[in-house]
């Protein structure tokens, strides 16, 4: 009963909050002071035509590092929760029927259409993901988006070929290396330029070209690889039984 009253009160509170938000809504006709600063000085200071990237990677770089950390911790949590300790020998007979059922579900082959479409689309999806994070400073998208697209490619692969093997060692190595390099680039910003994750440690280059905007493409390559491999690892963990530590 008390629980119900509590839920009702929470709902009423939410209703009040959202009602106020909805009724007091007015459209902003001009940018805030901070927004003005970013819009005026961002392209000149950082050399990135995509202002969102300039803000996400440089002005708010520390937040992005925090996001990457959150994703890392959730991937690690999934790995920990879905880990299965190996069953003892004498348990095997008891669970035999259960296990056979599970593996039958796992090894059901995909349809011809899915397999053929994946063969055709997978390289393009992966390539598009790489394109998105390499061009993060020029066009919409960036490390997170590119990484998520690469993970969608992994999803295709797992759908079409449920038995395909993804090396956990490779995932762990690439993920750790890119995360480490990301922090190293950030620290280099403190040493060589204005502060943590400052992108001006490298030459800003010609505005609007692929190799420009200082360290932003480099950082986004690391973020993209890290996010892509992390999400792939999460999918892989959900897919199958644990077959060992790596």
């Amino acid at each position, binding site marked *: 009963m008390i629980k119900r009253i509590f839920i009702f009160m929470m709902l009423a509170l939410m209703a009040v909050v959202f009602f106020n938000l909805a009724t007091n809504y007015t459209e902003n006709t001009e940018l805030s002071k901070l927004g003005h600063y970013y819009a005026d000085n961002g392209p000149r200071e950082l050399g990135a035509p995509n202002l*969102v990237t300039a803000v996400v990677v440089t002005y708010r770089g520390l937040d992005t590092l925090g996001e990457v950390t959150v994703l890392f911790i959730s991937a690690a949590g999934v790995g920990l929760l879905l880990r299965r300790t190996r069953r003892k020998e004498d348990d095997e007979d008891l669970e035999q029927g259960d296990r056979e059922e599970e593996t039958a*579900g796992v090894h059901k082959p995909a349809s011809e259409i899915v397999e053929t479409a994946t063969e055709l689309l997978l390289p393009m999806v992966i390539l598009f993901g790489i394109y*998105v994070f390499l061009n993060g400073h020029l066009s*919409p*998208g*960036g490390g*997170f*988006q590119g990484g*998520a*697209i690469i*993970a*969608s490619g992994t*999803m295709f692969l797992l*759908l079409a070929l449920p038995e395909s093997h993804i090396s956990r060692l490779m995932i762990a190595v690439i993920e750790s290396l890119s995360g480490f390099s990301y922090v190293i680039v950030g620290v280099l910003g403190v040493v060589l330029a204005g502060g943590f994750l400052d992108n001006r440690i490298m030459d800003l280059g010609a505005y609007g070209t692929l190799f420009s905007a200082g360290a932003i493409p480099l950082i986004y390559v690391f973020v993209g690889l890290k996010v892509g491999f992390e*999400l792939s690892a*999460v*999918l892989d963990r*959900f*897919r199958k039984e644990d077959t060992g530590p790596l």
Partner: protein
Amino acid sequence: MSIPMSIPVITLLTIVLCAGILISGLLAVTLDNMLSAVISAGLASLFASVVYVVLAAPDVAMTEASIGSGLTTMIFLYAIRKTQGGD
């Protein structure tokens, strides 16, 4: 009540898409079949990502489309299979 002719197409599109989000969200909550509920939740994300494009936020739209409607749906499907489809 008839819709006045002065409403721009983009507003109309946004309204339709938002209605789509609401309907698929409600379906996701109310449907008894777990599979349909998961698909509806993915559909809500898909509508939301189109709304983001309409509202000129392509960066957010890309994330929403790939993570919200792709990976999350997939992970839910795996989770349903692991729990044998029970609630």
